[in-house]
């Protein structure tokens, strides 16, 4: 009799736990084609005095790859908690596949022991996709265009916008620049007299100065050379003052001036160069000839006043 009571006392707490804890695993279907999702719901009903150790899906279920995990929900109804977790799983093997029992742990706050409760194993039938071998092969489908995001659209919008803004800035600056008063060029003192008139007057003044007669040959020929060069600059628009005698002769090869006059010019400038750079003292007749040749050159090459007036 004493033994009977002992057995009752020993089993009493276990039977008490069993009444307060209930775990289950349910599938929305147990027959799928390969790769199709199955919705799995895990539920634990337990006493409010207990704590649950929810199973980690990857460790608990090996044969069914997890597609998605949904948020767990927990309700309290009277003295009990009802906790549900939902998952989408699938299978890539065919045949009958067992969803193994999933283990839940339960314990009381402050107590070291944890009790494990297992769900029932479930059987899932996974079939191949039926292929109609009588039909011909279909071509491989091309990639599907993903919708464009705003980041992808950005360059198409921003670059034209920037170009428009840049164009507007350039247009604005151009307009501003155009409106700015332009500096008026300084008036150039153009000689009012023809080149030959100036040159002949200068030669006359030189003759009156009687430089070579006073022994100043260098100054005399320097001035003859300068007057002639000045005349050539004004008359032919040749940079005669910046050219040497030889360069001037080369330039005159391209100017429509009679050969005789070019030779006259060469003679005058050569004598002038000798007087200027080699201290040569030309003979009196050479000095007078220089002036005479210079006048002849001017007379032969001057612009006809009538011709100029007509132009």
């Amino acid at each position, binding site marked *: 009799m004493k033994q009977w009571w002992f057995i009752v006392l020993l089993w009493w707490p276990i039977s008490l736990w069993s009444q307060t804890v209930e775990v289950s695993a349910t599938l929305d279907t147990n027959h799928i084609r390969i790769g199709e999702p199955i919705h799995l719901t895990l539920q634990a009903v337990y006493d409010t005095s207990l704590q649950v150790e929810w199973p980690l899906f990857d460790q608990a279920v090996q044969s069914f790859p997890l597609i998605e995990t949904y948020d767990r929900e927990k309700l309290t109804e009277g003295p009990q908690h009802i906790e549900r977790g939902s998952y989408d799983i699938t299978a890539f093997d065919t045949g009958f596949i067992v969803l193994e029992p999933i283990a839940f742990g339960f314990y009381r706050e402050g107590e070291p022991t944890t009790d494990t409760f297992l769900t029932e194993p479930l059987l899932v039938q996974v079939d191949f996709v039926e292929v109609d071998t009588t039909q011909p092969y279909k071509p491989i489908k091309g990639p599907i265009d993903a919708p464009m995001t705003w980041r992808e659209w950005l360059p198409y919008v921003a670059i034209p916008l920037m170009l428009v803004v840049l164009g507007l800035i350039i247009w604005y600056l151009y307009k501003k620049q155009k409106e700015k008063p332009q500096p008026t060029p300084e008036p150039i003192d153009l000689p009012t007299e023809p080149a030959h008139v100036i040159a002949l007057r200068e030669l006359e003044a030189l003759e009156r100065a009687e430089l070579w007669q006073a022994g100043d040959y260098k100054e005399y020929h320097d001035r003859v050379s300068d007057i002639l060069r000045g005349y050539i600059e004004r008359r032919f628009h040749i940079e005669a003052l*910046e050219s040497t005698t030889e360069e001037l002769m080369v330039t005159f090869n391209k100017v429509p001036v009679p050969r005789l006059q070019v030779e006259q010019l060469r003679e005058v400038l050569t004598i002038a160069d000798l007087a200027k750079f080699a201290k040569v003292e030309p003979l009196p007749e050479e000095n007078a000839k220089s002036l005479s040749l210079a006048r002849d050159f001017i007379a032969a090459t001057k612009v006809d006043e009538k011709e100029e007036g007509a132009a």
Partner: protein
Amino acid sequence: METLSATDIQQLNERIKQESAFIDLLNLEIGKKIVGQQYMLERLLIGLLAQGHILLEGVPGLAKTLAIKSLASAVNAKFSRIQFTPDLLPADVVGTMIYSPADNSFQVKKGPVFANFILADEINRAPAKVQSALLEAMQERQVTIGDQSFSLEEPFLVLATQNPIEQEGTYPLPEAQVDRFMLKVVITYPEREDERQIIRQNLQTTQETIQQVVKPEEVLKARNTVRDVYMDEKIENYILDIVMATRQPERFQLNDLKPLIAYGGSPRASINLAMAAKTYAFVKHRGYVIPEDIRAICYDVMRHRVGITYEAEAENITAEDIITEILNKVEVP
């Protein structure tokens, strides 16, 4: 300054006509071997007579070596060629002390710089210390080996060449050292007809040999005469105007050139321009300098003495372009 009368200049002119006669002989003799490089030959003579040295720039195969070798033969002077390479040492140029075990002493071994005419081929291929050794010898006209100094034999002319292509792995001469060359001559390809003559001459079975036509003493005498060539004050002013225009272009209404010039010609440029113009007049058998002489030699004297800015480089403007602008603007006396 000594003032010369008109008669003095006339006499000088006559003397120079006589003393410069050997120039024609030289040209005739060298012309046997060299065709179409009259410009280079004229500059070589200017360097020789003005006691200057020449930096020659031109692509390979333009008879640079042959020209100076022929000049050396025509003057019967000692010629030496130094090929500058990256591993050349100063001692390879000037010489060194060699230990003699027989008498347990050091003996001087003179380098190739001990010659009258030196061709420093591709001078920019050697490092700075070798370039300096040669440039020092050029400047001082003497060389120190160990504790002994040796004067270089006159006439002494260095013709250094630079290749305008293949600039990789070269050591460009610094501006200060380039300034020591009296002339920087840029030579170009010969004319078509000249090149035809070159082909024919080179294909002949018998090659012409250059004979001595001038004694070195005549060259040394001519060097002194060159200094006597008359240069009028107007020409001096013209030289000064050109050099000043490279320093202060705005004073000559050349404001556009101001941002293009990094630095202008030094006083050495003025000295060399005057000396080269006198020599050019001598080469042309004249006893006085005319503006044509200045203009003829101006590019060779000034092109390596006018530094251009990055702005000029970006616009592809060269020192020659700047000199042209200056010559076109500065008034000829």
